[in-house]
């Protein structure tokens, strides 16, 4: 299932600033809401997004209850060499998802 959408330029020149954007499907349940039968809906949040560029972390973010469902995150990095960008989301209840995207630097 396509549960994450990632946009990375497929090629870039060395030294270029590239924009990377990510969107992931997740309810981001705050833990403060009650369901129709009055039961509290347990908290389920993505806690952290990290991006590694050829093994070196270039970006990370922490998410909290005020972040909307299906969180979108965009950031910039400098294209240094060809390789892979590895995105890892971690969250409550053992939520973990990893996606990798290739980038060619000329």
């Amino acid at each position, binding site marked *: *299932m396509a549960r994450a*959408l990632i946009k990375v330029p497929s090629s870039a020149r060395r030294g270029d600033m590239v924009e990377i954007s990510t*969107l992931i*499907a997740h309810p981001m349940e705050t833990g403060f809401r009650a369901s129709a039968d009055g039961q509290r809906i347990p908290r389920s949040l993505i806690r952290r997004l990290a991006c590694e560029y050829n093994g070196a972390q270039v970006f990370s973010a922490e998410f909290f209850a005020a972040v909307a*469902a299906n969180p*979108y995150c965009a950031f910039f990095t400098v294209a240094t060499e060809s390789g892979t960008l590895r995105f890892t989301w971690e969250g409550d209840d053992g939520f973990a998802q990893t996606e990798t995207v290739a980038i060619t630097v000329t």
Partner: protein
Amino acid sequence: MRSRRRAVVLAVVIGAAGLQSTVAAEQGADSRRSGFAFMSPSTQAMQRDDTQNPGMLMVGDGEALWRRKAGKTDQACSDCHGATAASMRGVAARLPDFDLRVGRPVNLAERINRCRERRQQAEPFRPESQELLSIEAFVAFQSRGIPIAAATDARLAPFRERGEQLFRQRMGQLDLACNQCHDDSAGKRLGGSVIPQAHPTGYPIYRLEWQSLGSLQRRLRGCLTGIRAEPFAYGSPELVNLELYLKSRAAGLPLETPAVRP
């Protein structure tokens, strides 16, 4: 017998009149605007960029479901409908259409569920379930950019007329009709929100208030609750008639599925 014939003639006349009015609307200055035009620039940007638009996640889910085998016949939607981009192109733009078997208009959700029951021999999806919405989004996505087609089928005319009556009928404890807000006061504000013209151009929509994808029927039920009327049930003839009327009212505006709305 004579009265029935008269009814048919009347239906044809109404159908033709409806067609003329939409043609006239296209020729003159068209003041109709999609809900997109009433949104903030940031919400518009969210819809324009497929990586920002959370509805695209559901389109992806829908595609996976479309290709998954289901039911006793062990068939996937794609087994019959083949190249989806071609076979489903424009389908969402011309629904609801008249179904001979049940003798009334059916919308996209019902079409999908009937196909599921009859061809796949599988359990129909619950209304407003994630599965149904994602397949709807995937099918409607194939019609993105295609203008909504005016229903020319004369058999639809009485249903569309009933839909229009409902649109103009005061309802609920607030005693409001749809047209009082969406025709007479469109562009003004209700609380902090701009009142749009109620053109169903992007369903199923990703609504920020819902934090999820939802159907036109969910939106209509939300509005009915807002005017403190008892909402019609999912799949009820009233909601389908309203959908039919709203689609013909919006004929010519391009489909935007999956749209983002505040």
